[in-house]
């Protein structure tokens, strides 16, 4: 009876071979290097940006002016501009991405599907400078007329106001160029594939049985999408959109090629001139030294934090939707 107490489980630890120990060690080294590099960058950015926060304090976030000569630096206007451009981009990109994702997953012929997916991938890999060129030289001249029409028809809404007369015999075209709206349209085109990819993937995972059940109950295709695919893909829709929003916030080149820099908090999206954080960095880094450089870094850091929060929320939502947690029907 007492012998049972002395019975100990056998030690099952297997010794690793020398090769394995070398392998695990070196791979761990790779991981540690990447961690050091990436973490180091984060720490470096924070340390370098601290002087700006220390010198300007909270006024850094409330000052609209970026005027190194007068010694005032603030990112209020820049942040508003960044958010404006990103939000308009998402308003345009969201319905298009959703529609395209639904088309690829529900409407397209199975044979065409692979090509369409490749098309979206390609759209994501087209360089931003190309989107910027097309936006500046092809879209902008056309958008001037649309902007004027919006101003004319909806000018009583503050965001569609422009400081000029739309009905003048020769209307001031230049007032309608280089606006937040045009930049946002280009950004929309760039971030759309990222949202579309995530949405399409989630829609494809909607359970076949439930689709068939909806059809068997006499549902139309749209009825099926509304009652099965969209509820199932809710997480993917939200997550994909936020992922695209993160990209839209950080877009540089396409925005710089289109906008005219203007440091003003403004809601007039049709009017010439706005500024975003990446555009601020891209246009001002060369002439900056000392505290201005720290200010630029601080602006970049604020943008990074905003993007990081957006991306993390997106990641959580997408992962949850994929694990099937939100699919009780």
């Amino acid at each position, binding site marked *: 009876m007492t012998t049972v107490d002395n019975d100990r489980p056998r030690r099952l630890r297997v010794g690793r071979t020398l090769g394995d120990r070398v392998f695990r060690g070196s791979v761990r080294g790779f991981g540690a290097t*990447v961690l050091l590099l990436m973490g180091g960058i984060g720490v470096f*950015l924070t340390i370098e940006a601290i002087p700006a926060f220390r010198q300007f304090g909270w006024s850094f976030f409330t000052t609209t002016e970026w005027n190194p000569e007068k010694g005032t630096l603030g990112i209020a206007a820049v942040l508003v501009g960044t958010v404006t451009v990103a939000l308009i981009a998402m308003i345009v990109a969201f319905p298009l991405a959703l529609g395209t994702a639904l088309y690829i997953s529900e409407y397209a012929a199975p044979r065409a599907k692979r090509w369409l997916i490749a098309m979206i991938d390609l*759209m994501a890999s087209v360089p931003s400078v190309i989107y910027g*060129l097309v936006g500046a030289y092809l879209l902008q001249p056309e958008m001037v007329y649309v902007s004027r029409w919006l101003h004319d028809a909806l000018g009583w809404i503050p965001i569609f106001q422009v400081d000029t007369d739309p009905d003048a015999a020769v209307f001031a075209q230049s007032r309608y160029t280089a606006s937040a709206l045009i930049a946002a349209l280009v950004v929309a085109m760039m971030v759309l594939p990222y949202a579309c990819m995530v949405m399409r993937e989630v829609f494809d995972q909607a359970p076949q049985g439930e689709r068939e059940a909806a059809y068997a109950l006499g549902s139309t295709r749209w009825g099926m999408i509304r009652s099965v695919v969209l509820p199932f893909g809710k997480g993917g829709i939200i997550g994909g959109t936020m992922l695209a929003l993160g990209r839209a916030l950080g877009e540089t080149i396409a925005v710089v090629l289109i906008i005219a820099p203007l440091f003003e908090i403004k809601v007039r999206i049709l009017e010439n001139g706005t500024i975003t954080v990446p555009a601020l960095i891209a246009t001002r880094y060369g002439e900056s030294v000392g505290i201005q450089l720290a200010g630029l870094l601080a602006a*970049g850091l604020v943008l990074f934090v905003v993007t990081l929060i957006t991306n993390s929320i997106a990641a959580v939502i997408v992962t949850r939707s994929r694990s099937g947690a939100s699919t009780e029907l």
Partner: protein
Amino acid sequence: MTATLTPQRTDAVAPDVPEVRRDLSGRTVDDRVAPFGAALGALGLLSLLYDLLPLSGVLGFVICWYVAFVLLYALVSWYRHPTPAVTDRVAGVLIRTSALLVGGALVTVIGYVFIRGAPALRHLNIFTEDLTAGPQDPLDVGGVLHAIVGTLIQIGIAISITLPLGIGCAVFMTEVGGRLAKVVRTVVEAMTALPSIVCGLFVYIALLLTFDVQRNGFAASLAISVMMLPIIARSAEVVLRVVPGGLREASLALGASQWQTVRKVVLPTARPALVTAMVLGIARGIGETSPVLITAGYTTFTNANPFEGPMVSLPLFAYTLARSPEPLFQTRAFGAAAVLMVLVLLVFLIARLAAARRQGR
């Protein structure tokens, strides 16, 4: 006498009406024709009324036409169909046109770059000369050779830094694991959110200003690497994670060591998907302008030494010339953009081929 009954061929009686195949697709003539009718009707309506609208320009006309078309189509459907069918049709039109619009946008973007760049591409010297020409020189003088060389060198250095590091890090995260791996994964995921312009600014301050060096190609490759590394590490990890655990266990059960398992089982299984993920990451790196803008510097001469002197790349070249008011420089910008697009398309094609081989297996 026994009567033999020959079996009667009942089916020999030909029916008066020839048999008609039943249409199972459920699409009626109405379904097929109504959208065309609505589109034509909208066009007709608009050609009469367009002058009354305050909108002008081609884009404005197309927008008005589309709105009129959707409204007319809904109206036509509403005459003969119940509300769910009308909603289905309108939703179908909206979804199809949004896909068409996105596809059209992609074709327009790529097509426009090639059309505007064609005058520059027509002269072969674009591939053999650098841009020592001035703004007034014709297109058969000068080219983008220096930018092509710069792009290849910069992306080459960036690849040789990020691929081993990224894949090694991914192997660590999936195969070794542990608490450190979790930290690495969190940090890598966080760094994918770093805006690309901030990558450039980081290298500019940490390397160029601190050590007081002139801008050069190596700094640009480092900036690209900083941008690419989290992307590569993360996508490689996603790919390695979907390798079935059963394969690993089978290999270990046969007595293979972990190193052998990774080298002979995990990596070969994931290889095609890994190639696709890597190539897409590289495509991102080739096309990225903003980190290069701050770190590479601009030059019109061919510079094959990444450690000394400014070294321009294709996207930076296109960006710089596009901001110039000279029409010939703008054409050259589009020419460079077209060359860049070809490069990205090539890289993309390699990725698709790798993916196709995966599906073939």
